[in-house]
């Protein structure tokens, strides 16, 4: 799966190029390919943990996108309701949300998704460190304080993000952590 990452990136850049020009002719696509290759060499991310090793699973990326669009609509309806209420019932708070997946890529995806989904806004992030086992932590601002529900919805996004961009060990780790959490919730 790892081998898919670079080709997917190049294809995306070519599509982007063609869309910007509005021209899907073969000469334009070739020009796009050249630019895409140059860009992927020059703009290689440095210092991003787990970037090289990160898998890319197209099917789960699609599922993630679909779930995300659904959340975007739901979130807007709920915020709109709050905005239009005569007296908004807000119970604001900042919650620290420890994530289970270590890589910066997954944390980025989750942080962005949180901002566009119901009642939550990523405010700050403390990045994780796999060598010391330090968990990444997101600081999330919520409009309606309900710690468990917020954590549940964020972990659901995290699990999908790991399925799309994480290794199978990470997925296993997330699953184990979530099972533990479910058991803890029952007690």
């Amino acid at each position, binding site marked *: 799966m790892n081998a898919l990452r670079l080709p997917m990136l190049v294809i995306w850049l070519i599509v982007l190029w063609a869309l910007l020009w509005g021209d899907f002719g073969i000469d334009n696509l070739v020009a796009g390919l050249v630019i895409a290759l140059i860009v992927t060499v020059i703009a290689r991310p440095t210092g991003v943990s787990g970037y090289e090793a990160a898998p890319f699973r197209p099917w789960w990326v699609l599922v993630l996108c679909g779930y995300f669009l659904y959340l975007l609509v739901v979130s807007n309806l709920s915020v709109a309701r709050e905005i239009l209420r005569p007296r*908004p019932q807000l119970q604001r708070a900042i919650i620290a949300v420890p994530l289970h997946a270590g890589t910066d890529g997954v944390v980025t995806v989750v942080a962005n998704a949180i901002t566009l989904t119901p009642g939550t806004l*990523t405010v700050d992030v403390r990045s994780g460190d796999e060598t010391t086992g330090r968990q990444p932590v997101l600081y999330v601002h919520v409009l309606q304080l309900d710690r468990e529900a917020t954590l549940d919805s964020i972990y659901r996004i995290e699990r999908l993000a790991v399925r799309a961009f994480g290794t199978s060990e990470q997925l296993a780790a997330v699953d184990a952590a979530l099972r533990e959490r479910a058991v803890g919730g029952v007690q």
Partner: protein
Amino acid sequence: MSDAISATLIVLGCGFAAIGGIGTWRFPDVLSRMHAAAKAPTLGLVLVSIGAAIRIDTLLATTTLLLVVILQLLTSPLGAHALSRATRRHLDAEVDDDVDELLADEQSLDDDSA
């Protein structure tokens, strides 16, 4: 028929953009306002783009609008992060609402890292 659909989508989209504006004005503090500013106009733009794509109905317009939507979805949260992060670091007092327990929790996590 397609005109009706596109008109509905565009009006809905404008409605969400307006709601975002109203929320930015009505909500009580910077971070709450960011919720309104980051989400509603994003969906608004998506709806307007879909409506416009249906109305204009050429491949070029559709692909360009698709690009607008994708880039908006990718970048809108980033602006919100940058602003709220700066807010949190400089105006800590303002966001210390009524949640001592959670703030204590947050503190202990910070201690772990030290």
